[in-house]
C-alpha cells in the first residue's frame, strides 16, 4: 500500500471507528440466543454485598431454595462495587448460567448488566433492590420501603415527640431504597417543624462506616435525641457509637431491615424500632419465578412489592429470624 492510499484511508477508518464505538456503548434489549444449559442447569445469585448479615440471609435463602428446585447455584459477591458487579455478569454470561437472581448495587448503574444478560438469553430476577428500567429484568420483587418508613416515621414521632434533634444515616446514595426510605420517613417527620435534623450523612449501609460517622456526628452534636438509620447494620454501628460515648440510654435508635441482632436489641429495649423486610420471602419468590420461567412460564408482573412491617417493643415477640415467626 503506498503512502497516498494510507493518507486517504486512515481518516476513513478513524471515522468508521467512531461510529462503531458509539454503537457498542450500550447494549440493546431483546432476546439473544439462549445460553447452553448443562445437564444440571446453573443459577447465579449475584448479591450487592455479603458484608451485611441481611444480604447473607437473602443470598443463602436464594441459593438454598434454587438448590431445592434442582439447580446448581453459585453466589457472587459484588462487594457494593458496580465494577465488580459488571465483572460478575460477564463471568455468568460466559459460563452458561440459566438465570440470575440479582440484588443490584445501583438502580441506574446496574441496568446495563441486566440488559447484557437479557441479550445473552439469561433471565434476571431482581430481589429487594430496584433497577430504574421496566424492560430489562423479568421481574423485580421489592420491599415497599416507602410505606415501611412512613410507619417508622409515625412511630418515631410517637416515641421522640413532636420536638427534638435527630440525625439521619443514609445508605448508598445510588440505591433507590436509600431514598424511598428517607422520603417515607421525611414525609412524616418533616410535618413537625420542631423536630430538627441536625445531620444527614451517608454510611453506605455499612456498620463500620456508621460507627465512624456517628462518632463524628456526636462530637459536633452531643445533645441529639434520636438517630434514624436507613438499615439495621447502620443502626448497630450507631448504637455502638452511642454506647461508647455513654449516650445509649438517652438517644433513641431506629433501624430498618429486621435483622436478627436488631430485633434482639429491640426486645431488650436498647433499640426502639425497625422495619421488618422479608428477605427469605423475597429470595424464595425470586427462585420460584426463575424456575417457572425456565419451565416456560412468561406471565410475571414486572414489580411485586413486599409489605414491610413495623417492629417495636410492643410486638417484637411476633418476629424473629428475618420475618414473622408464624409466617416464615
Amino acid at each position, binding site marked *: 500500500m503506498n503512502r497516498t492510499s494510507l493518507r486517504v484511508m486512515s481518516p476513513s477508518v478513524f471515522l468508521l471507528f467512531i461510529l462503531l464505538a458509539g454503537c457498542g456503548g450500550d447494549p440493546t434489549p431483546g432476546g439473544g440466543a439462549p445460553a447452553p444449559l448443562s445437564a444440571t442447569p446453573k443459577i447465579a445469585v449475584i448479591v450487592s454485598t455479603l458484608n451485611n448479615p441481611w444480604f447473607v440471609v437473602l443470598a443463602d435463602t436464594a441459593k438454598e431454595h434454587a438448590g431445592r428446585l434442582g439447580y446448581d447455584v453459585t453466589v457472587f459477591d459484588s462487594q457494593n462495587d458496580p465494577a465488580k458487579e459488571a465483572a460478575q455478569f460477564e463471568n455468568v454470561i460466559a459460563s452458561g448460567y440459566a438465570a440470575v437472581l440479582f440484588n443490584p448495587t445501583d438502580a441506574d448503574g446496574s441496568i446495563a448488566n441486566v440488559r447484557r444478560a437479557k441479550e445473552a438469553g439469561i433471565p434476571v430476577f431482581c430481589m429487594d433492590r430496584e433497577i430504574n428500567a421496566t424492560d430489562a429484568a423479568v421481574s423485580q420483587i421489592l420491599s415497599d420501603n416507602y410505606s415501611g418508613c412512613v410507619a417508622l416515621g409515625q412511630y418515631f414521632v410517637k416515641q421522640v415527640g413532636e420536638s427534638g434533634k435527630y440525625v439521619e444515616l443514609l445508605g448508598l446514595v445510588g440505591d433507590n431504597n436509600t431514598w424511598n426510605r428517607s422520603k417515607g420517613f421525611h414525609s412524616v417527620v418533616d410535618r413537625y417543624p420542631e423536630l430538627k435534623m441536625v445531620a444527614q450523612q451517608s454510611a453506605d449501609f455499612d456498620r463500620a462506616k456508621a460507627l465512624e460517622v456517628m462518632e463524628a456526628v456526636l462530637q459536633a452534636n452531643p445533645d441529639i435525641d434520636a438517630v434514624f438509620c436507613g438499615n439495621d447494620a447502620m443502626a448497630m454501628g450507631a448504637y455502638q457509637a452511642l454506647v461508647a460515648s455513654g449516650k445509649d440510654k438517652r438517644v433513641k435508635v431506629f433501624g430498618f431491615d429486621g435483622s436478627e441482632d436488631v430485633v434482639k436489641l429491640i426486645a431488650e429495649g436498647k433499640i426502639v424500632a425497625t422495619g421488618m423486610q422479608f428477605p427469605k420471602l423475597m429470595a424464595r419468590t425470586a427462585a420460584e419465578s426463575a424456575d417457572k420461567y425456565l419451565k416456560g412460564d412468561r406471565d410475571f408482573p414486572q*414489580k411485586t412489592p413486599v409489605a414491610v412491617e413495623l417492629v417495636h417493643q410492643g410486638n417484637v415477640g411476633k418476629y424473629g429470624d428475618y420475618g414473622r415467626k408464624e409466617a416464615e
Partner: protein
Amino acid sequence: MTSGRRRLIICSTAMGSAAVLLYFMPLFHVVPLEVAGQRSVAATFDPVAFVDSFWTERLLPSADRAVDVATLVAAVREDRQAAKRAHGRSVGLGGVYYYFVAGTGRVVAVEKNSVGLAVLDGEQQVQVALETGNIFGNTLRDGTGLLDVNDIANSQDFNALSSEINGRIEREVLPSLRSMAVTGATIRFVGCAEIVDEDTDLQPLRIVPFIAETP
C-alpha cells in the same frame, strides 16, 4: 527518516490514541427508541400533573365502585377473612390489605385527628373514623386499585404520587370535613382504609377520604 514519513507516523499515532480514547469514552451511544423514551419519561415525570388528571378523570368517577360501608362493617363483624376475600384488595406480597369504601354515617365523636361515625342503624359506637389530621402513606394510592406500581417507571416516582394525593386531600377535602364535623351531623364519604393489623385496624375502620360532604 523523511519529514513526510515522520508526519505520517505522528498523524497515525495521534489517530490511534484518539481511537483508543473514543473506544472507552464514545461521543454518543446508540440506544433503541423505547429505551430512550423510557429515560425521557422517567426524567420528566410530573406527579402534580399526573394527580391532576388522575383525580378528576379516574378517582372521582370511581366512587360508585366502592363497597357500601354498612355492608362492609357487618361483613367484618361476621367473618374477617370472608370480608377480606369479598371486599379487600392486596398489593404484592405480605399481610397488608385495603378496603375501598363509601357510605353515610352520623357523627358521634370528634377527635383531634379524626371524626368518628356510626354507620349502622341504631348504634352509637364509632364504626368508622375519617382521618382529619396529616395524611401519610399509600392508603389512597393503593386502596382503590386504580394505580399500579407497574405503570410507573420507578418506585420513587410512584411514591411521589402518594405525597401528591395526600397533599391534595389535606388541601381540598379535609378543611370542609372538619367544618361539618359536628356531633349529630350526617356525612357522606368515599375513601380507603389500610389494614395492617386486623386486631386494631378493623374497629374502627380508619378511612382516608377523598370525598366528604353533607348528603
